[in-house]
């Protein structure tokens, strides 16, 4: 288990329990179980209390947890017949964006998402989930395809942001992002999004301009990273805790602001502590969101999407 900074006390207790049991195994005469069980209880109480009151900055850490389930895992678990479709037809295939045809609950869908990778090799291959223009243009192509055949689009968002690189800029990162958002606002099929980890700025909204947007309980969605915001507004990157708080980037804040439609509860201790329960909760949320759009006319879905985003911001956090 990879412990986060704020989980240190938890790591200590769990470590002690483990040590105790190891001691018990080495000395069969010693009865450690009672004491170890006590520590287990203490640890599980602590998880409940820690995760019941996470600060915004702690949520950022959970959202970026290296063991948090990523896009690939959701695709493998929730979809069948996943058939990746590659390339933007003009330059390359961007491996930080996964996408293709698949079946969700038997129904054909187009699934598109950012993939961060889970070890050094895959993280580099996936560019840590930071898409280049080719990734966005692939997404546009897939949304177009889905649109022509009347297939719903499901997007899974998990990116620190679009890649800030030389080639990415030269090949029109801004234009690619702008066109992706534009495509989201044009297609006449259901479009649902789930923010499964980090919703990083323009790179995220380009995939999340959807009829319904759900967020996992400890995911974040923001215009800028707390570190970036702190270094600009506080002129001190170490003020990320304050910045995270001020940015209102938690699922709970965003729900209150009317920016997202649904919060998906995570298991106690975060998505990475019970992957099966997490993916199942995401399945149910997607099912419900698609259900809400069943039988609606394509042009109505598109118009409703536009109207929804035009109306954003009519609700502040007042009082």
């Amino acid at each position, binding site marked *: 288990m990879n412990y986060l900074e704020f989980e240190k006390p938890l790591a200590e207790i769990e470590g002690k329990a483990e040590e105790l049991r190891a001691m018990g195994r080495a000395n069969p005469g010693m009865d450690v179980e009672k004491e170890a069980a006590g520590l287990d209880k203490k640890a599980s109480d602590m998880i409940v209390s820690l995760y019941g009151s996470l600060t915004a900055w702690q949520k950022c850490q959970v959202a970026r947890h290296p063991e948090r389930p990523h896009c690939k895992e959701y695709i493998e678990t929730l979809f069948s017949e996943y058939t990746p479709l590659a390339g933007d037809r003009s330059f390359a295939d961007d491996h930080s964006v996964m996408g293709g045809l698949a079946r969700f609950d038997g129904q054909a869908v187009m699934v598109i998402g950012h993939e961060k990778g889970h070890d050094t090799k895959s993280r580099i291959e996936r560019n*840590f989930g*930071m898409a280049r223009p080719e990734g966005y243009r692939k997404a546009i192509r897939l949304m177009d395809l889905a649109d022509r055949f009347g297939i719903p689009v499901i997007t899974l968002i998990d990116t*620190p*942001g*679009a890649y*800030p*690189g*030389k080639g*990415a*800029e*030269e*090949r*029109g990162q*801004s*234009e690619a*992002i*702008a*066109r992706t*958002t*534009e495509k*989201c*606002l*044009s297609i006449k099929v259901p479009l649902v999004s789930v923010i499964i980890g980090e919703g*990083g*700025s*323009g790179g995220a*909204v*380009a995939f999340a*301009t959807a009829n319904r947007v759900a967020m996992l309980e400890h995911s974040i*969605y*923001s*215009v*800028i*990273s707390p*570190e*970036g*915001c702190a*270094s*600009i*507004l*506080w002129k001190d990157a170490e003020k990320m805790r*304050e*910045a995270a708080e*001020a*940015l*209102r*980037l938690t699922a709970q804040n*965003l729900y209150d*602001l009317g*920016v997202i439609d649904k919060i998906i509860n995570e298991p106690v201790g975060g998505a990475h502590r019970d992957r099966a329960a997490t993916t199942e909760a995401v399945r149910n949320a997607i099912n419900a969101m698609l259900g809400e759009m069943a039988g609606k006319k394509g042009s109505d879905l598109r118009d409703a999407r*536009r109207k929804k*985003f*035009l109306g*954003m*911001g*009519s*609700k*502040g*956090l*007042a009082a």
Partner: protein
Amino acid sequence: MNWISNYVRPRINSIFSRREVPENLWTKCDECGTMLFHRELSDNLHVCTNCGHHMAITPRERFKALFDGGVFVEVKVPEPIADPLQFRDQKKYVDRLKEARKTVGEKEAMLVAEGEVGRTPMVVAAQDFGFMAGSMGMYVGNAIIAAAERAVALKRPLALFSAAGGARMQEGILSLMQMPRTTVAVQMLKEAGLPYIVVLTHPTTGGVTASYAMLGDVQIAEPNALICFAGPRVIEQTIREKLPEGFQRAEYLLDHGMLDRVTPRGKIKDELVTIVRMLMRQTPAVKGDLPPPAPKAAEAVAPAEKPAGKAAAPAAKK
């Protein structure tokens, strides 16, 4: 960590101080160092008479030079909720806003107006880099939507001058939401068959570039304008190599196929009129310094304009 901060901090101070220069003083060109008489500089649309360097120009000054006879009517922008996140960094957002209003003398970072440009009725929006780095929040979004709606109602083209350090961080996620919001505004114009011309000015970065500023039917930029998604410093920190000369400048983007044209400020008016009149299938333009349109009865929603472009005559303003 890897997120992009598109905020051009060092420039802001220089612009604030420049604005405070009294009429009779000299301004030093930050490119060639020439001392320029303030009056001479404003007559030349804030372009250095020695080296051609394009300095910041306020939306109001731009409109005065752009609209025939300097006459335009402001388009009303709906007021958004003030300080939706109750944001506070080292200062309260409401205080920063108040300060910007006082220093700049404008309400917010975008001005929208309608009038005639080269006898061609147009709606024009311009972003004000001097106002909190031109950053895009709810008000800027509302301004673009109001501009698009007005253009559609009047069946006129929309020209938009962009200038921004990116998103208004103090409005957090709602600032990000201006990317889809303004995209819907652009779609309104497209679906009404009206031209949407973007003129990118220095600097246009971040979420602004990644939404309405890159969705024009025709994309023009002022010379040497910085136009990017991620700023050069962020990129250098990420890739740890020196960027090539002219990287992310207007001419560089033109070379890489990201723009239609790079046009000096003094020629933009004629170019806008030429392009728009062809797209609107109107007769060739009358060019040069035109007097204000003849005053007419208060304009209601104008009919589809006539080729002569004399239909709507806005009341004189300022």
